[in-house]
C-alpha cells in the first residue's frame, strides 16, 4: 500500500508519529470514528490524506452554520443585543458564501443546503430560541466558552508518543444550575425521539463528555443537542438532552485504548482491513469505487482523489 500516488498525506502531519509515520497518536472524534467504521477508509482518509475532490455540500453548510453560531455568541458576550448579534451572524453567512473572484454566491446542488437556507436557519433558530434558558459559560479570560479546542494526554502510545485526545466543543453552557456541552447538528431528515436515539452511544459525544469530566474535571451533565432539520422551504429545530454516566465513560475509554492499539497494529503490519459491511453507510463511502476494483489496480485510481491533511492537533478556536 506504500506506492499509492500522492499517498503521503501523513507526512508533516503533527498528529502522526515520527517513529512509525503511519501511526496516529493524537485522536479526535472524526479520526476515531473513521477507524471504527472501516480501517481501510481511515487509511485512505487520514494516513494517505485523500478525499473526494468535490467537497461535500453538507460539510460546507455545517461549517458555516457552526461558525455563525459562534459569531452570535461572541457578539452577545461582548455586549451586543440579540438583533445586533444576529445581524453579525447573518453578515458572516453572506460574506463567507460569496465568491469574490466569480462575483456570485455559493452554488449548491442540494436544494436543502444553500446560501438562503443557511441564513434562514440562523434567523429562524434565534427566533425560536430568542429567550434561551441556556447561558454560555464565561471563561476566566472573560471570553465566552464557545468553539473551545482541547488537547489532553490520556496515556502513552506504543510508539512512545503521548496518546492524545483532541476536539472542539461548540459551546459550554449552563441551564438550571447544571453545566452542559452544547452542540449544533443539521439534518435533512425528520427530528424526534428516534433522531436523538442515535446519540447514545455516540463516539463524538462520549469523547467530549469524557474529556470534560476526566481530563478537565469539568462536571458536565451531558450534551445539549440543538438539531436543525433543514428543508428547502423551512428550518425546524428541536433540542435534545444526551447524558452519560461514569460507567459509560469507563467503557468508552476502554474501547478507545482498544481501537488505538489496533491502529498501531495496522500501521506496524502495513495493512488496514476493509469493513465491507459499512460501504453503504452515511450515504455511501467515497472510497467505494476504489474498493470495488481489484486490489492490484486500486492504487492508480486514488490519483483522482484530492489531497487533504486531517490534523486533530490544529486548533480551531480558543485553547481549553
Amino acid at each position: 500500500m506504500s506506492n499509492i500516488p500522492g499517498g503521503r498525506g501523513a507526512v508533516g502531519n503533527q498528529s502522526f508519529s515520527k517513529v512509525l509515520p503511519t501511526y496516529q497518536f493524537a485522536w479526535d472524534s472524526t479520526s476515531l470514528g473513521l477507524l471504527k467504521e472501516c480501517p481501510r477508509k481511515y487509511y485512505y482518509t487520514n494516513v494517505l490524506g485523500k478525499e473526494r475532490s468535490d467537497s461535500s455540500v453538507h460539510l460546507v453548510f455545517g461549517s458555516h452554520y457552526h461558525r455563525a453560531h459562534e459569531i452570535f455568541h461572541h457578539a452577545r458576550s461582548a455586549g451586543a443585543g440579540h438583533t445586533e448579534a444576529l445581524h453579525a451572524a447573518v453578515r458572516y453567512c453572506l460574506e463567507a458564501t460569496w465568491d469574490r473572484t466569480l462575483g456570485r454566491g455559493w452554488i449548491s446542488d442540494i436544494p436543502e443546503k444553500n446560501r438562503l437556507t443557511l441564513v434562514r436557519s440562523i434567523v429562524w433558530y434565534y427566533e425560536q430560541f430568542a429567550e434561551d434558558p441556556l447561558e454560555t459559560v464565561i471563561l476566566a479570560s472573560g471570553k465566552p466558552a464557545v468553539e473551545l479546542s482541547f488537547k489532553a494526554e490520556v496515556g502513552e502510545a506504543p510508539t512512545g508518543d503521548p496518546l492524545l485526545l483532541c476536539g472542539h466543543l461548540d459551546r459550554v453552557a449552563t441551564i438550571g444550575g447544571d453545566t452542559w456541552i452544547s452542540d449544533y447538528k443539521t439534518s435533512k431528515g425528520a427530528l424526534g425521539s428516534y433522531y436523538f436515539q442515535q446519540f447514545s452511544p455516540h463516539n463524538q459525544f462520549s469523547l467530549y463528555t469524557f474529556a470534560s469530566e476526566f481530563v478537565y474535571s469539568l462536571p458536565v451533565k451531558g450534551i445539549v443537542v440543538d438539531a436543525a432539520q433543514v428543508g428547502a422551504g423551512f428550518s425546524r429545530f428541536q433540542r435534545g438532552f444526551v447524558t452519560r454516566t461514569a460507567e459509560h465513560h469507563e467503557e468508552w475509554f476502554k474501547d478507545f485504548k482498544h481501537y488505538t492499539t489496533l491502529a498501531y497494529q495496522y500501521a506496524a503490519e502495513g495493512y488496514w482491513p476493509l469493513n465491507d459491511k459499512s460501504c453503504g453507510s452515511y450515504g455511501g463511502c467515497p472510497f467505494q469505487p476504489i474498493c470495488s476494483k481489484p486490489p492490484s489496480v486500486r492504487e492508480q485510481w486514488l490519483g483522482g482523489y484530492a489531497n487533504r491533511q486531517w490534523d486533530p492537533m490544529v486548533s480551531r478556536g480558543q485553547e481549553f
Partner: protein
Amino acid sequence: MSDAANPLLEADPLSLDELFSRDPLGLNDQDIGKIVSDLRRQRVKWKITEDLPKEAKAKPKASKKVDLNLSLGDLGL
C-alpha cells in the same frame, strides 16, 4: 407624469433574491435588517401551517373514481 407623482418611484425595498445576489460587502445594516425581517415573516407564515393539526395539513386526496364513459359528443363540438 412628473417624478413626484409617480408611485413607482417611491422607496422600493429590494427583494430577498436581489439582496442575496449582491456583493455582501456592499450591503448596509438596513439591507441586513431587511433580510432578517423578510425571513422572520417567512417563518410566521410557515408556523401557521406547521402548527395546524395533522388532519388539517393533509392535502385532500384526488378521487380515484374517473368517469371513462365519454364520447366525442361530450366535448360539445
